[in-house]
């Protein structure tokens, strides 16, 4: 789950103690939020659900590790976008709504492990019976 680019910058998803598990290998991380519903509680630990009148929001913390060879300190800009549309769901990373185009999430993400908040807004009228939510979020960091 780690990508090296030019042997100077690396990117990886890391599990957080208060967050759900992140699995996967190489450049692909997989976060399973489990079963969620408007009136119930989330089945997986580290996943929280809040409700509004017309939707509910599923929140999960996400850990990202940025490594920079030869540099103990520094920052990188973090961009993210959706590889496939997620309608009717809305996905936010650190309160930034993600779409099909890269969006700047954080301009100065510190080298090391940083904590981020992933939010998925699910309308109450999203689906028929049970529905599988699936989103693929691309991340890109650029050294400042």
């Amino acid at each position, binding site marked *: 789950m780690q*990508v090296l680019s030019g042997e100077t910058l690396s990117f990886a998803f890391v599990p957080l103690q208060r967050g759900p598990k992140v699995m996967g290998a190489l450049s692909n991380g*997989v*976060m399973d939020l*489990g079963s969620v519903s408007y009136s119930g509680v989330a089945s997986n630990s580290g996943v929280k659900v809040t409700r509004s009148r017309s939707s509910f929001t599923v929140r999960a913390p*996400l850990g990202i590790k940025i490594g920079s060879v030869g540099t103990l300190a520094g920052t990188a800009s973090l961009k993210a976008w959706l590889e496939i549309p997620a309608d009717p769901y809305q996905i936010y990373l650190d309160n930034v709504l993600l779409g099909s185009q890269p969006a700047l999430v954080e301009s100065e993400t510190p080298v090391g492990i940083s904590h981020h908040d992933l939010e998925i807004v699910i309308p*109450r009228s999203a*689906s028929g*019976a049970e529905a599988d939510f699936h989103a*693929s*979020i691309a991340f890109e960091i650029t050294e400042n």
Partner: protein
Amino acid sequence: MQAWSTTFPRRILSIIASALLVSSPLAFAANPTASGTLTVTATVTSSLALTFNTATSGPTITGAGSNAATLPFGNIVAYGTEPTGVTLQSSSTSLAVCGTCFVVSAPVSIAVTQADGSSANFTLTAKLGTADTQNYWAAGTQSTQLSSTSASTISASGTYGGTGNTVLVYLGVPNTTVTTPSISNTINFVATAN
């Protein structure tokens, strides 16, 4: 000739400078980047929310708008005037649990809302929290007796929405009771999507 000799070196310098810039990776290379992809999955399940409210012409309940409310019958009597919102169904009737009883009823509004589901209606059942061998409890209709061992169907096709479904709660008390202590029990209502 004089003008050429002065501009020629400048052009050479300019070309050399440009060549240096083009050949220098530090000058034009983009900052290092790295990337990753996170797949996020979840199963969105349909759900129902049940809330109690004071029914029209019913006693004022406490805990309105929540799923844990109290319906107060007040001081009920077999012969006389019932508290506001309470109706005397019968001053003396024969029921299995309490023998010869008087029966009162009070309405409560039960609202069930659906999220991420597509069912047209719901089934509402009720069950007593604690067994009562002296008093008679029913809901929906007077003949729909409640017990603590199994749930009784109150409605097979409840209507979703905040308007709510009015459900009558019946309480039968033995006429033979000389001193009536405070009577209370818990009724657990369960709504299940059809």
